[in-house]
């Protein structure tokens, strides 16, 4: 059994977690026209990386959404960072810490 780190609860059984999607997908700017191809790219296309991957996961038992960085070949977990902003916004929760990747912010 593998354990993942919930930023809120700490190390927990993998059965408590849900894979929500790849991190870093940016929703098209709907203030201007958006083509079918742009929507398809956002809604359907995936990086599905072999190796390092940044993903949004949910810890189902507490509801915490967070970015987890994993190696998709070895299953090794490289880090977990909350998406939640701390009160007062003093902590840049999105994309901060060891999970900061080339995609920038860790928005789902």
């Amino acid at each position, binding site marked *: 059994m593998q354990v993942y780190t919930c930023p809120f609860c700490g190390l927990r059984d993998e059965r408590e977690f849900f894979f929500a999607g790849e991190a870093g997908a940016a929703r098209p700017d709907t203030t201007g026209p958006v083509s079918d191809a742009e929507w398809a790219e956002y809604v359907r296309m995936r990086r*599905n990386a072999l190796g390092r991957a940044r993903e949004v996961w949910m810890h189902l038992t507490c509801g915490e959404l967070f970015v987890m960085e994993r190696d*998709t070949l070895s299953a090794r977990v490289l880090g977990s960072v909350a998406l939640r902003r701390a009160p007062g916004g003093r902590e840049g929760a999105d994309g901060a810490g060891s999970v900061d990747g080339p995609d920038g912010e860790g928005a789902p």
Partner: protein
Amino acid sequence: MGGYSALRLLREGLRDQRGWRPAWRSPKLRKAYDIVIVGAGGHGLATAYYLARNHGITDVAVLEKGWLGGGNTGRNTTVIRSNYYYPESCALYDLSLRLYEGLSRELNYNVMFSRRGMMILHHSEHEREIAARTVNAMRLNGVDAELLDRDEVRARAPLLNFGEDARHPILGAVWQERAGTGRHDAVAWGYARAADRLGVEIVQNCEVTGFIVEGGTCKGVETSLGPVRAGRVGMAVAGHSSHLAAMAGFRLPLTSYALQAFVSEPLKPMLDCVVASPAHGVYISQSDKGGLVMGGALDRVPTYGQRGNLPVQEDVLGGLVDCFPAIARVGLLRQWAGIVDVSPDSSPILGPSPLPGLYLNCGWGTGGFKAIPAGGLLFAHILAQGAHHPISAPFDLTRFERGRLIDEGAASGIAH
């Protein structure tokens, strides 16, 4: 190299088996081919065979990073069926089933296609309504289907759990008489041997590391054995499709998951059809050697590691014991996993890629084995003509942009 026959078996038996020759050559990689196929699994090898047989194109190389048939072709649970919902899917998978029916003769290689029938159980009134709808849809699409009631299910598989304490009581099943199982390795070996005899070159231990792109067109592949130029390149690499697509500079609507399977110690005959239970999330058949071949749902974690995780093992094996209480104490012989490429609508992707000159055969998810003959035949047509076959056209990559999905994940009630 002679054909295989009962007479040949007898003759070699009398000659101390000294007359057998390797079933295919191991040629050196050349610098250029008309067509290069990446991936010597079932789909890649079948594509090469039909390119040579149906289109007369024999200057073909099939490149394989590992060994022939060592990916999902050697890791599946050998079920062959065409019990889908939409007309596009039925046309595709029933073509495959019909090709399987004549495949041993066609390839002169016994693929042990065993038309033993398959039942998909239902466990509630609501599931029964959907099952009736599925049967009607299949019949309208020209595929055989029957709705079995509880007693008919019991007659076919008496060891199923019909007890009062069953977690999911059995109400009936969708039955496809023409479905069955095949010998998975033999399908790869049979296509490899038949393609090789027609002049196709199969090069193993040759990993594709990139694509040669000139003027925005794919002109070949870079490999661990050096560059190879090609008129057209086809990729049939299942779970690693996204990885190759990244090398070619585009993304695919695929997520790679591990699909686990299990085989038990050999038992006396106890089950002579394939049984699937969507409510339990499991399916099971008994191999010719007596082992129970079992599988279930995907691991829910995207992965390229061919192992499989423990929570899904518990769910699958627990579900199977619920279905067949008698197997609770049967020992497992092996467990394994293959990496499957799952698309948003659980239907495959066939046709041109965003990179001109490179063509796609991917997205089969957990259902690639049953589709090998059709996938190969259609992909050969696409590579030879540079255009779709009528059956493959709906499965073009552009459907995700057009919104014309073939959503079998929802429609046929089989999660993949």
